[in-house]
């Protein structure tokens, strides 16, 4: 998100979900869309059915790559090479949009110079993607006016995640594929309210509406609104905060997040949690983090409270209370108002609608939105500055929000942990269709559990055989940080030398393995690349194991 704010001036999908079906070229990179965003994938399938060109770049074979025009199966962590080489082709073959660049872009010359060394042939050596495929992808993307880029955490969850975003934004800006229907750059948000949480200022550097805490004018606005002086010092990023739990961080309030499931390198976090002086956990279940809590506050689930979620395409939509919460559980917003009152803050807020109004009045891009209007008209997309404004379908029309789009040259940096003799495999982690994040909700569904009841690791049959591992064997996956026991699945979805694990299973926490080293700008951890190895354990193979929906290349002969 930091990358998009820097280059375009807003960290959000530039297009709408409904525009996907009209696109003529879809460049999907680092997104297993059918499993993580199934309904967006339906729109992509519809576009392909209509005749759109689909380019999938992913180290794994995924469902979408099975219907892609071409699949660029790059080595994990080499995205910058692939994207810079595409930029190289666009520059050297004169496929860039001169008029757009002159009017709307700064930094083109720097990027053109920086990508000169990234030839497709050299890129083939580093990424494993054929030079001819790179040329084809660059030409196809550049020469299709309605071309959209779609990406998720496969781009950002790297120590060079921000570089990846810059490299993608460079392709967008040099081709002018921005500010029009179906043409743009689209981060697909993983959780229901990622966009809304960021919009609302749950951020160490941004007040609501991306107003910086170190901007005196913004701070003064909120000091007036809230009637208290505010700290001008940006706070800690989550990844930094988690590393300092137990040292600099002595007290912690955690709402709706199971940090000992979801944070990387959790063994270290758990040590820190043992040392904190006070921990409050507010959740709907007794999650794994609650083991360390001093006070646990029972919260209402989404069907038991009012409010709004803001989706990937900036659409603010109502959440409505349909049933009463169980026992004495209360809506999070009610608990927060009470907690504030007992901590010295007197907030006159008696409904979620009033909270929204308080937030919207100081943020121009939300000022036209209210619960009453959303109930009347359905979801609306920000920017929506006035009560009669219809909302904004796609961003940057006629003028990029930042003024001029900024192209930032990026140089390839290796992932922080590469395969070596001790840990010769590269581990990536991800989500599956049938579970959701820490799976506190989905593993309590009998049906979903029937489809995927236990954790597994996908490995290439060649890598499996070399280690004497059969399909379905129980194995231990090891990294420098920890080890977990899972089922082995022979899979041709992964490249040789690469392995993949879902992160949903509490008894086999993938995040005991992952690297907490972060991106220098966002501090986002490198969930997608770390060095690992696998060994067989003595245990009977599982006879009826159904890992998921896309495992048809399980050739028993390897």
């Amino acid at each position, binding site marked *: 998100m930091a990358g998009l704010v820097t280059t375009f001036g807003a960290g959000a999908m530039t297009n709408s979900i409904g525009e996907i079906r009209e696109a003529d070229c879809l460049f999907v990179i680092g997104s297993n869309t059918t499993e993580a965003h199934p309904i967006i994938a339906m729109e992509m399938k519809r576009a392909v059915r209509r005749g759109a060109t689909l380019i999938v770049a992913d180290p794994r074979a995924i469902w979408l790559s099975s219907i892609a025009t071409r699949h660029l199966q790059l080595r994990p962590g080499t995205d910058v090479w692939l994207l810079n080489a595409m930029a190289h082709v666009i520059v050297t073959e004169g496929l860039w949009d001169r008029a757009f660049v002159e009017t709307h872009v700064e930094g083109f010359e720097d990027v053109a110079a920086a990508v000169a060394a990234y030839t497709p042939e050299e890129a083939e050596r580093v990424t494993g993607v054929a030079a001819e495929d790179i040329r084809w992808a660059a030409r196809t993307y550049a020469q299709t006016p309605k071309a959209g880029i779609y990406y998720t955490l496969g781009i950002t969850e790297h120590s060079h995640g921000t570089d990846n975003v810059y490299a993608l934004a460079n392709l967008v800006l040099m081709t002018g594929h921005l500010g029009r229907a179906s043409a743009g750059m689209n981060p697909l948000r993983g959780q229901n309210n990622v966009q809304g949480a960021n919009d609302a200022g749950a951020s160490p550097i941004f007040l609501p509406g991306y107003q910086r805490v170190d901007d005196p004018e913004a701070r003064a606005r909120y000091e007036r609104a809230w009637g208290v002086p505010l*700290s001008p010092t940006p706070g800690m990023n989550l990844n930094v905060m988690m590393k300092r739990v137990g040292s600099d961080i002595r007290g912690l*309030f955690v709402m709706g997040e199971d940090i000992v499931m979801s944070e990387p390198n959790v063994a270290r976090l758990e040590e820190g949690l043992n040392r904190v*002086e006070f921990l409050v956990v507010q959740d709907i279940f007794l999650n794994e983090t609650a083991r360390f809590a001093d006070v646990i506050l029972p919260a209402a689930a989404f069907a038991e409270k009012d409010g709004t*979620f803001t989706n990937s395409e900036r659409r603010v939509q109502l959440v409505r209370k349909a049933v009463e919460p169980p026992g004495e559980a209360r809506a999070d917003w009610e608990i927060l108002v009470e907690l*504030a009152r*007992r901590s010295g803050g007197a907030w006159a807020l008696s409904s979620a609608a009033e909270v929204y109004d308080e937030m919207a009045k100081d943020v121009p891009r939300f000022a036209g939105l209210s619960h009453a209007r959303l109930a009347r008209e359905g979801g609306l997309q920000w920017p929506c500055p006035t009560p009669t404004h219809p909302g904004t379908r796609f961003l940057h029309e006629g003028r990029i929000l930042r003024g001029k789009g900024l192209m930032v040259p990026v140089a390839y940096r290796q992932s922080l942990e590469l395969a070596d003799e001790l840990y010769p495999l590269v581990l990536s982690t991800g989500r599956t269709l049938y579970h959701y994040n820490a799976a506190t909700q*989905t593993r309590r569904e009998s049906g979903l559990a029937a489809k995927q009841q236990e954790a597994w690791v996908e490995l290439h049959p060649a890598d499996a055989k070399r280690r004497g591992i059969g399909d379905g064997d129980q194995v231990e996956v090891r990294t420098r940080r920890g080890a977990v026991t899972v089922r082995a699945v022979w899979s041709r979805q992964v490249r040789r030398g690469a392995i993949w694990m879902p992160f949903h299973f509490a008894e086999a926490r993938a995040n005991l393995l992952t690297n907490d080293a972060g991106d220098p700008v966002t501090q986002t951890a490198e969930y997608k690349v770390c060095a690992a190895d696998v060994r067989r354990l003595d245990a009977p193979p599982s006879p009826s194991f159904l890992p998921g929906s896309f495992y048809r290349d399980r050739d028993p002969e390897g």
Partner: protein
Amino acid sequence: MNDPNRSRVLTLTLDGLEVPFSEGETLLDVAKRVGVTIPTLCHDPRLEPAGVCRTCLVEVEGWRRLAPSCATQATAGMRVTTDSARVERHRKGLLGLYATDHPGDRAAAERRGPDELLAMIDRYGARDEALGALSSLRAGRPKDANPYIDFDPEACILCERCVRYCDEVEAVSAITLAGRGARTTISTADGIGLLDSSCELCGGCVDTCPTGAMAEKLPLTRGLRAERELAKVRTTCNFCGVGCQLDLNVDPGGRDGRGQVVKVTSPAPGTTTNDGNLCVKGRFAYDFLHHADRLTAPLVRGADGQLYPTTWDDALSRAAQGLLGVKERHGADALGFVSSSRCTVEENYLVQKLARAVFGTNNVHQCAAT
């Protein structure tokens, strides 16, 4: 741009009225747009026209046979009648045949879901046309162990909406027409269970089915009340970032009057971002709401390290005192606030306000700021 054909307004006559249309519209599209009702069974706006159910037949002047309005392109000057005696005679006869091949037990049908066919048979008075109940030769899949989707071959009329949805929208082609003649049924390749097939359990087949042949298993096994006794509450899905709109189907008397979510259905196609579609989680993963593991009372840790239930008053006071104590001993920046991209916009606003305005620190974040 100056193509004279483009600027010319195309019109046709529909039930005696001259109406404009644009190129590419079907007769059904035109009728819908101007508010003329034509009954359909095999039509779904998300699917390519199939023209197999024959309920949408209309009369076009000069055409020998009635035409399926869903699959007939509008052309300039057409004279179309949707309610002539001939059309009505055809419709009644056709619905009578469908009624013969469809269970008449209304209560049973209602438990499976809305039955568009039964409603249509009533609306057009076609019950008398039925030839007496016939039991179907179509085979079901009684051994299919999938947890969510039930298929009742008796209720099926082979409109193929489910098969076409699976093929054209979800694009996994898990279900297919199988068998021949009167034995034709909806099945999978080799009749395998859905869990073993390419099915992703999205439930789109249930959503699009007009007769209740495809139904949700869980509400059936749990003795769900009829649809009309349920309240529908429109809300936003709580899983991924697509923001699908869904309707929680609530039994208001369930859970001792606290209300119980017994089913999730999708809004009509074309009305929300998700175009009537949902995934396996959005449509089926609601049991967590009423799960026995839900936290129901505030808990505090005792001196013995165990957790004990307590009152809200006590828990909130302790939470406030604990956090204020850390601030007093180590300063505001020794506190960290982890907010949540799973919670609402309003709640995220309040957490950051709590951190900044009440406790005085900018150490507030959530897991989703990449």
